[in-house]
């Protein structure tokens, strides 16, 4: 009798819950649009390809067959395996997905994604695509070295792309395989450039950058993060040897509360330019800069959209471009096993177009430094000085 009423009650609650969802569903597209409008606009100046990429970010898989896209090609399949960060990581998983969607639209590739929930799943997840006979399987994340090796040796006829890493055998020795393209990025270059820009800003006491102190926050002390930071520190010191640099890690790529508190802490200790390398956690870090009216520097993609007035620039790492180009190369049978370096040379690293707070002359100087890095005159360090 009562349980009956309960049944009804539960049904009601469920209904309300779904009601909440669907009602918000109706509002969602507009929100998403407004969300994505910013980045696409900003990025379009940055680099033509990634503009389209972030534009693609607006449309979710279902809706991606918009006018500008070519006809889907069911015979060319690409699989993407994220690391445990997942697609919403605001970092390389996210960017790789953008590249994938772009390939889906512009190359007509048939794309599928598996979000890994456990590290021990990397092998089966890669295998799943290999078994489907995908033309290219993309492994995102530096912890997949051994997994890629395992699966790639097992399926020599399937092509693989490993982002931020290279195949490593059981002993941990790197082994280049003909069917694995190792996509490496010189994050230190991007880090160096934004660091240099930050240094000049402080040196010239531009706008809010008057404390001669800058800071950074990493997620975990892992290679892709530390390469950025190493470059950042070196660049800043190069621009202004007297500069003070505060740094820390949030020990998390998700916890925004910590990120923000570290940001506020760094600001309270004098920092006026904050550089984040911590995925979602880093958004909290940047938010601190927004709240306190100082400057922030984004990472990976152009994150100016987070707060146009605050984010003076971003350290770029065009995973999306790398992914797109690799897919394209595979399609045109130009797949290249072994190391594929993505650098300033091929426009895969660098800095996003600075916002209006950065004077033209500083932009010019940084651009010069970029040229020197391209020419090899400057070689940014890859490890943080102890």
């Amino acid at each position: 009798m009562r349980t009956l009423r309960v049944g009804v009650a539960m049904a009601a609650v469920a209904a309300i819950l779904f009601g909440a969802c669907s009602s918000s569903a109706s509002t969602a597209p507009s929100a998403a649009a407004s969300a994505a409008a910013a980045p696409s606009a900003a990025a379009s100046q940055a680099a033509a390809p990634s503009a389209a990429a972030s534009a693609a970010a607006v449309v979710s898989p279902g809706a991606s067959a918009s006018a500008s896209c070519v006809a889907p090609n069911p015979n060319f399949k690409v699989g993407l395996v994220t690391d445990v960060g997942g697609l919403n990581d605001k970092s390389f998983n996210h960017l790789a997905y953008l590249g994938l969607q772009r390939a889906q639209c512009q190359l007509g590739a048939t794309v599928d994604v598996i979000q890994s929930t456990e590290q021990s799943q990397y092998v089966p997840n890669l295998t799943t695509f290999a078994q489907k006979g995908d033309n290219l399987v993309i492994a995102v994340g530096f912890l997949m070295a051994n997994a890629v090796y395992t699966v790639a040796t097992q399926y020599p006829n399937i092509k693989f792309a490993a982002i931020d890493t290279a195949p490593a055998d059981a002993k941990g020795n790197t082994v280049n395989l003909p069917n694995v393209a190792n996509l490496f990025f010189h994050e230190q270059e991007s880090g160096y450039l934004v660091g240099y820009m930050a240094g000049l800003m402080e040196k010239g006491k531009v706008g809010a950058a008057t404390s001669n102190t800058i800071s950074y926050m990493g997620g975990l002390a892992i290679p892709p993060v530390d390469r950025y930071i190493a470059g950042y520190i070196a660049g800043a010191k190069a621009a202004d040897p007297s500069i003070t640099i505060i740094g820390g890690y949030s020990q998390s790529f998700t916890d925004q509360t910590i990120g923000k508190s570290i940001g506020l802490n760094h600001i309270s200790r004098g920092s006026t330019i904050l550089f984040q390398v911590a995925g979602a956690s880093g958004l909290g870090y940047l938010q601190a800069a927004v709240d306190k009216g100082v400057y922030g520097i984004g990472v990976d993609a152009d994150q100016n959209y987070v707060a146009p007035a605050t984010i003076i620039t971003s350290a770029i790492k065009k995973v999306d471009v790398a992914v797109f180009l690799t897919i394209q190369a595979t399609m045109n049978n130009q797949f290249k096993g072994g190391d594929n370096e993505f650098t300033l040379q091929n426009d895969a690293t660098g800095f996003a177009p600075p916002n209006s707070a950065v004077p033209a002359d500083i932009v010019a100087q940084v651009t010069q430094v970029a040229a020197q890095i391209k020419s090899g005159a400057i070689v940014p360090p890859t490890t943080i000085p102890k």
Partner: protein
Amino acid sequence: MSVATVPLEAPRGRLLRFVAAVVTPILAIVLAILVGGLVVLASGSNPIAAYQQMLVGAVGSPFDISETLISSIPLILAAYAVSFAFRCGLFNIGAEGQLYMGAIASTWVATTLPNWPGLPLILLCIVAAMLAGGAWAGIAGWLKAKTGAHEVITTMMLSYVAIDISHWLLEAGPMTPANAFGTPESGPIPPQAAFPVILPSWILPNARLNASLFLTILAGLVFAWILWRTPLGYEIRAVGFNAKAAAYGGINVARRLVIAMVIAGAFAGLAGMVPVWVQHRLYDSFSPGYGYEAIAVALVGKNSAIGIFLAGLLYGAMIHGAVAMQANANISGFLVQILQALVLFFVGAEMLIRWILRRGGLRALMEAAA
């Protein structure tokens, strides 16, 4: 949180009890699948396709079965850790940290003694894992016995500490050999220390499923043996049900609390070792939260050895099945978390199940399920 909140079934007529123990969870799963289907539907996808893919993806081939088991094993072992503490009236919410400790200790032993012969080394690693996990949990047990510090707090805090320690060991160097990219991972487990792979290659080439499966089955037997075949287990259960009566029966409650936690931690330590031995090295943040999912598994498994084993298989199947579901039906893997939650929810909501049983005219069953 009083002991009364710890879910333990009171036994009834043996056969009826058994049937009820089988029927209720199955009904719960069915309900979960139905409601989960609604979610898929609401998100504009085809539930049938989703479940079909999940099923095939989980058990469709020797490879999938082997992978499902690999996903299940750490959950099962960690669930034994949660459950054993439950049996003593303790809510071990920090199995996560205990399994981190187990992983660290076993890896450390393996990598520092690379020249030992296989069998002794692997045994030593197992012992190290169990000791480390047990010690870590033991701290909580000891604090509970000595100062009454609530285990929910201590185990939770200790697990955060353990995780930070692992970050330090792997990121700041002490356990990370200099390697090409400075990736935060330990050196490789010496090959002779690896668990032998158990699927012959003519069934499945490069299978990864290894002897840790037998270790898990063994752990289940030990779990049941301690609880039901030894005075210690009797006393632990007695303390769990009614500490006052246990003390009246001459049982040293404080000591039993500590021992129960240590044993629980030992199971968790094993749970931490297994994934490392699957990947042949300890990676930074290697656990996706086995210790927390294990709470769900333990609860779904009703704190019985066999129940937990099956619940673990179910959750593992959902996890691995989600792979195919994402790859082939293009449905978000997050659905799995929702499904896992629903299964747990309906297992908890027994009254609902009993109501259904009553409608089905299975009054006796319904009462047994109470």
